[in-house]
């Protein structure tokens, strides 16, 4: 056993692949996680993104082995994990509140997993030293967690999880407790360390910017179901559902009816006028009611001519861009973000404008929710 463990921890530090196969977690009739399937490659960083209560933590705890799923399988590398307790899964986890052992020094915290695996004392020491160097805290190895700042505690939690060279690293909203500046530093730091260690990582977050900036691929969850699983740019540029379109980034939505489908789609908006959009990702037929989604940066303002008529409510010059809020005839607010030329001023409130799209290929339509 001892020898086996030592060999395992001395293995090269590249992470393992992780397959989540139709995993479901039921609480009574309620589905906290509903047939979610994810295929995560070794060394990849995947973000689980979704609103509060969508089942992110539950899925993470299933991967770690704290919850036994009602259905489906978890496979790490080529080993089926179902029924294996957390201490035999070789999975590292960083909790939202870090969960450092308060009665142990930083060095002892980092050594904890090594000791649990029966790693020899001198090897423990070198490994702890390496980890402390990696997180740049070697000068305060003998402090207790309470004596550290939030960012430092988080780095220790990360080092503790990585010290045992886990096959998978799980991070549950690791940045939620940090202030904005520190958060960005830590995001870069964690990404650096994860790359360096070659660990496969699953990051839980409800912050879309964090997911888009850090992850190789983003899994968007809603009410326990997987809405889309794709690289960040694809999730943003080609959202697969109305939920993804509105949850990731901002989107202006307008109701309408499909009037033509030919590679692109043409939608007659309820407030008047036609708009060309890209082909729908979800099948719709001519005559169907749809919701048109337009990102603010894909809209432009004009004084007259074609486009949706509206009145400027407010204009905000934001340095590199100008944001206008335009009120349409039926009272909806449209956000329009345009690049700002030097010296350009926002339009005066009350001025009549036309809102146009920059092109059909960036406008999405989704079947209108059956109301």
């Amino acid at each position, binding site marked *: 056993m001892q020898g086996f463990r030592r060999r395992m921890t001395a293995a090269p530090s590249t992470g393992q692949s992780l397959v989540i196969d139709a995993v479901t977690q039921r609480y009574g009739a309620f589905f906290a996680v509903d047939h979610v399937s994810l295929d995560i490659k070794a060394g990849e960083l995947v973000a689980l993104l979704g609103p509060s209560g969508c089942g992110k933590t539950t899925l993470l705890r299933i991967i*770690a*082995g*704290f919850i036994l799923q009602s259905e489906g399988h978890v496979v790490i590398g080529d080993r089926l994990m179902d029924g294996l*307790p*957390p*201490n*035999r*899964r*070789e*999975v*590292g*986890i960083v*909790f939202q*509140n870090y*969960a*450092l*052992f*308060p*009665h142990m020094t930083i060095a002892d915290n980092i050594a*904890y*997993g090594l000791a*649990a*695996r029966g790693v020899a004392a001198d090897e423990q020491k070198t490994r702890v030293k390496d980890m402390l160097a990696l997180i740049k805290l070697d000068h305060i190895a003998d402090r*207790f967690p*309470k*004596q550290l700042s939030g960012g430092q505690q988080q780095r220790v939690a990360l080092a*503790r*999880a990585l010290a*045992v060279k886990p096959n998978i690293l799980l991070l549950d909203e690791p940045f939620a407790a940090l202030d904005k500046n520190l958060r960005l530093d830590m995001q870069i730091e964690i990404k650096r360390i994860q790359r360096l260690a070659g660990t496969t990582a699953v990051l839980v977050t409800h912050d879309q910017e964090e997911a888009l900036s850090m992850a190789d691929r983003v899994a968007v969850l809603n009410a326990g179901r997987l809405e889309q699983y794709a690289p960040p740019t694809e999730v943003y540029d080609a959202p697969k559902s109305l939920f993804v379109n509105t949850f990731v980034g901002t989107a202006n939505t307008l109701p309408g009816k499909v009037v033509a489908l030919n590679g692109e789609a043409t939608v007659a908006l309820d407030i008047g006028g036609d708009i060309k959009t890209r082909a729908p990702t979800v099948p719709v037929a001519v005559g169907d009611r749809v919701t048109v989604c337009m990102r603010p940066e894909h809209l432009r303002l004009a004084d007259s001519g074609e486009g949706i008529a509206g009145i400027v409510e407010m204009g905000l010059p934001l340095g590199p861009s100008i944001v206008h809020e335009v009120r349409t005839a039926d009272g909806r607010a449209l956000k329009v973000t345009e690049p700002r030329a030097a010296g350009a001023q926002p339009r005066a409130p009350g001025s009549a404008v036309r809102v146009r799209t920059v092109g059909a290929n960036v406008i999405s339509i989704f079947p209108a929710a059956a109301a």
Partner: protein
Amino acid sequence: MAATPTTQNLPTVTAYELKLAWPLGAFFIVFFLAPLVLLFIVSLYTDTTMTHFGLTQYAKFLLDPFSLKVLGATLWLGVEVTALCLLLGFPLAYVYLRVPGWAQSVLILIVLLPLLTSVVVRTFAWIVILGRQGIINTALLELGLIDSPLRLLYTEGGVIVALAQVQMPLMVLPLITALTRIDPNLADASAALGAGAWRTFWKVTLPLTLPGVIAGCLLTYAAALSAFITQTLVGGGQMLFMPMYLYQQASTLNNWPFAAAISFIFLVAVFAVITVFNMLGKISQGYANA
């Protein structure tokens, strides 16, 4: 809590606190400190008629093997009761945190029940249980496991068990408080790092519960030592502990100076034990809250 005044208001707050403490302080001075001083003066008389001063009563106790044996037996009894309470109380507190809400209410009621019953009633219940014709002996005889009744009452074992039951809440409540304060993620973190249930218990749960363990032991120990009624009724005539010993000297033999000296020696001995406990508590507290 050492108040380091950083703002102007702090001294005022301290003044308030002192004022509020006055009623209780006065109560203690009149009904605790004053009698204690009187008791100490009484203990300094050399004779029962209380005419001459001297330290003979203390010398008498400390040079008398019988008296020292009673003191030793009493301090040891406290240790045994405390150990038994800890042994039974810890698993109980541990289970308490892991059962659903309704079961917690039931457990807490069972734990608190001894506090809600009179000491005399509880002690007589134990006599009924442990006696020659008691529940245990009757059951064992009926089952044919024994031929003649076991001697359970009037034994040290009987006293320990009865005292442990009575003092259990004093152990379990601080333990539950200490266990509740531990972040449940710590156990999960430990498991994810490869530790089994035992390792997690020894390395994480137990060290973090130590302040509660110390508090529980302190309360249980002090209460077990002075539990006059239970000690006497369940222990019977053969076993003599300090409370009964000094009661005999005072009431039966009317040797007030010697009884007073016994009280003081007992007080100092208990203080010594508690100070050691307390020091352990301080150390463990620094350790757990560092």
